[in-house]
């Protein structure tokens, strides 16, 4: 029973991905294409080209941060839809520190920019979490509203207050350039001796290993420390946890702040790692993709890494599908949405199955003989 359960748990995400691909196939068939060809083109495009591989890793980086941020809030039964707005604020704070301070050494300037990003996002997240814990305002709606406010605020700050004066009169609406000392170092120089070159290799930066390390630390933190235990207790049975002296509100607050702090780093892969300025058209929607990543990973920090890789893979594959199979690349967005729906339904069905199995086991007569057990009854 235990082994079968483990196999089922591993198989569930795979089945859900297959179901999503199958449903997307119906759409591909409907427009008169062969889905197998389309998927084959995507896999070939993604796996046989060096630029694709590095592009996937570049796209994976922010998704690791976003996935971790959402997963942490889920772990204490909160739903941080506000990752989107929190990373807008984080990106702005990092850019502000990056372009307004000059002459600092990189060992000081970059950490300062990262701290500003995390700190700014945490301050932004104070509103929903304090209102939730103190006044019972539902965090889903308040964070959605905070996302819109963040978006409007950024529009104002980039366009009206901090717009690069040298760009006025051009269609480019963005902040001044970030100082070189605040840029995240590229992994390009490390990879060059391996014979890996090109712009996609250059784009890859230190934030990828940082994201992976954070995921590992969080996994340890949640499974092996006292706070991690309290987190599990609060999620599993808040009343029992409270009775055992674990302050629910404080644990939820801590995890939400952690979630927001990591959310603040989501945009930096693009802002400090690639562009070097905050443009009004900076990549958006990563916070929502983070929800998908967290769901696929079942809120496990280590699971976030492969889940983010899958979404990075699909994202890059979209370009290949459009260019080589001439199917609009939006088919991949549709596929991503279908995978999420399939995965949540699949996990729900699995939970139900486990529950009925447990019930059946509990109802089994205790007098079952060892011989009967051995035959698998």
């Amino acid at each position: 029973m235990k082994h079968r359960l483990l196999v089922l748990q591993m198989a569930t995400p795979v089945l859900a991905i297959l179901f999503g691909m199958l449903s997307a196939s119906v759409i591909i068939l409907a427009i008169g294409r062969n889905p197998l060809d389309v998927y084959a083109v995507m896999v070939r495009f993604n796996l046989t080209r060096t630029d694709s591989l590095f592009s996937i890793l570049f796209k994976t980086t922010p998704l690791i941060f976003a996935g971790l941020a959402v997963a942490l809030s889920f772990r204490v039964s909160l739903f941080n839809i506000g990752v989107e707005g929190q990373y807008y604020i984080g990106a702005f704070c990092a850019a502000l520190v990056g372009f307004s301070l000059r002459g600092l050494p990189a060992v000081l300037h970059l950490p300062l920019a990262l701290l500003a990003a995390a700190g700014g996002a945490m301050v932004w997240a104070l509103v929903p979490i304090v209102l939730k814990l103190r006044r019972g305002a539902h965090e889903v709606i308040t964070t959605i509203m905070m996302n819109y406010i963040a978006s409007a605020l950024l529009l104002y700050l980039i366009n009206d207050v901090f717009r690069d004066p040298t760009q006025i009169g051009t269609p480019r609406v963005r902040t001044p350039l970030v100082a070189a000392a605040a840029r995240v170092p590229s992994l390009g120089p490390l990879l060059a001796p391996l014979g890996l070159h090109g712009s996609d290799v250059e784009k890859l930066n230190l934030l990828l290993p940082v994201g992976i390390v954070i995921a590992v630390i969080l996994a340890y933190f949640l499974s092996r420390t006292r706070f991690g235990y309290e987190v599990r207790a609060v999620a599993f049975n808040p009343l029992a946890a409270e009775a055992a002296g674990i302050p629910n509100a404080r644990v939820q607050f801590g995890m939400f702040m952690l979630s927001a702090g990591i959310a603040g780093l989501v945009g930096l892969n693009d802002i400090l790692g690639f562009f070097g300025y905050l443009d009004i058209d900076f990549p958006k929607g990563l916070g929502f993709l983070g929800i998908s990543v967290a769901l696929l990973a079942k809120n496990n920090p280590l699971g976030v890494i492969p889940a983010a890789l899958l979404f990075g893979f699909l994202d890059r594959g979209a370009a290949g599908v459009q260019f080589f199979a001439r199917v609009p690349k939006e088919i991949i967005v549709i596929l991503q949405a279908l995978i999420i729906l399939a995965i949540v339904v699949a996990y729900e069905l699995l939970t139900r199955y486990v529950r009925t199995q447990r019930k059946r086991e509990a109802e089994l007569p205790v007098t079952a003989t060892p011989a009967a057990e051995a035959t698998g009854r």
Partner: protein
Amino acid sequence: MEYMTSLFSVALLASAIRVTMPILLASLGAVHAERGGVVNIGLEGIMIMGTFFGAVGAYAFDTRFPSLAQTWPNLAPLAGVLAAVAAGLLFGLIHALVTITFRVDQIISGVALNLLAGGLARFLNILLFEKATQSPGVRGFTPIDIPLLRDLPALRPLVTGVSPMIITGVVLVAVSQWVLRRTRFGLRLRAVGEYPLAADTLGVNVYHLRYAGVLLSGALAGMAGAYLAIEQARLYFEGMTQGRGFIALAAMIFGNWWPVGALGASALFGYFDALSLRVVRLPVPYQFINVLPHIVTILVLAGFVRRARMPAADGVPYTKEEE
């Protein structure tokens, strides 16, 4: 003084009424879903589908049946509205299936629907019109003048050249309010959202009623999208909903989960919207006017304006099995 009157000019009010409609229709949808106990964050996505299929329906009718569309000019936009409502119903059905039958988290299903709608609209638009972001232009309904009221000179800009969909929307508010307050269906829907176990014990089918509430929300949000595409912009373009599906949720909350309240809140938000669209000399940047609805919603939820009273079982999946 002149400045103050510019804030309440009749033209501004007329424009406010127009931009209120899509928020109001989607908000009425939200009221029905949540009164039955299902949160529908997917309203934004359903509205996107509504804008797209509204434009496609109207355009397709116009090109397929040109003679019919010539004789009865209202048929093409009507076809658009029906297509949008059908698309909304389909998305509502997905949300209902996932959240009521499979009891998946309602927020997650809504987020997925929003993602799906964005991708689907772009994908289909490329297939139909060979570009991702815009449909060809469509014709709207013939505007009508409201009899009697149109003879009052002061009100003329408000009551002449009115879209029939605006009148439909106002009628729908009254009907919804009556249905929820006075009819058997409405009372049962509310019971299912407040205390599903009690309703179930009395023989009310919780699942059916929740399906009905979510389907209604899909249809109304689809119609809201159709209004944006057919009556306001006269075409579909990407991102035209601008988060109005979420504003509609906000209006529902501010309106305390009642249709009439949703009307008041939508009108207020529509007024902010109209204000930011007009070049009225404002003492604050327009971005801040744009987020007033969002700020108000947070304050309402936090109980700073007045206590929000949501249906007790709102957002909680119902199961007959014992856990």
